[in-house]
C-alpha cells in the first residue's frame, strides 16, 4: 500500500509543478470566448466530443473602456460546450508582448439569436 501512495504523491507533485510552470512556459494556452461575452484564458487540460473543455489555471479577462484589463484568477474550470463561441490558440510571444494594462476595449457582446 505504501508504494501506491508514493505514486499518488508524485502525481500530485507533477500536477502542482505543471500548474506552477504552465503560465511561465505558456504550454497550450488557449483563449475561450463564451456566449455571454466572457473571455477566459487557460491551459487546455482536456476536451470531449461535445466540445466541453477543462481549463487549468484559468483566468477571466475583463475588458472595459475606462479601466485597464483585469485578470481574475478562476483556477480549474470546466466549460460546457454549448456555452462556447470560440476557442483560439494563443501565440505566447505575442500575448506576452502585449501589456494588458494598456488595453482598453468594450467587453465583447453576448450572442444574440
Amino acid at each position, binding site marked *: 500500500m505504501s508504494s501506491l501512495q508514493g505514486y499518488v504523491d508524485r502525481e500530485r507533485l507533477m500536477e502542482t509543478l505543471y500548474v506552477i510552470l504552465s503560465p511561465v512556459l505558456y504550454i497550450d494556452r488557449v483563449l475561450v470566448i463564451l456566449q455571454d461575452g466572457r473571455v477566459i484564458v487557460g491551459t487546455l487540460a482536456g476536451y470531449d466530443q461535445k*466540445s466541453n473543455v477543462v481549463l487549468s489555471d484559468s483566468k477571466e*479577462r475583463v475588458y472595459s473602456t475606462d479601466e485597464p484589463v483585469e485578470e481574475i484568477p478562476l483556477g480549474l474550470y470546466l466549460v460546457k460546450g454549448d456555452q462556447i*463561441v*470560440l476557442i483560439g490558440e494563443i501565440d505566447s510571444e*505575442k*500575448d506576452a508582448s502585449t501589456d494588458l494594462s494598456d488595453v482598453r*476595449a468594450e467587453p*465583447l457582446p453576448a450572442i444574440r439569436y
Partner: protein
Amino acid sequence: MLIFSVFKTLTDQTVIVELKNDLLITGVLKSVDQFLNIRLDNIQISDEVRHPHMIAVKNCFIRGSVVRYVQIPADAVDTQLLEDATRRGSRFCYKRCPKFPD
C-alpha cells in the same frame, strides 16, 4: 449534409465568418465537421481596435451554432451545380414525406 460537403470543398480558401455576437473573423478555412464547427488559420479580426481581445490568437475553432454567415469567395463554388444538388435534395425529402407528393 449537402452544405457540409460544400464546406469541405472550400478548405484552404480564405473566408470571412460573421458570428452571432457581430464579430467578423477572416481566416483560412482549415476544416469543418458535421455540426459546421469551423477551424480557421491565420485569423484576423475585422475591427481590431474595437475588439483587441483576440490579438494574440493565430488560429481558432468556432462553434457552428454561433455562426451567422460565412462569406466565401464567389469563384470557389459552382452555383449551378449547387442549385441542382439542392433541388435533387429537396425532391428526395418530398418523396419521403407522404403529404407532399413529387
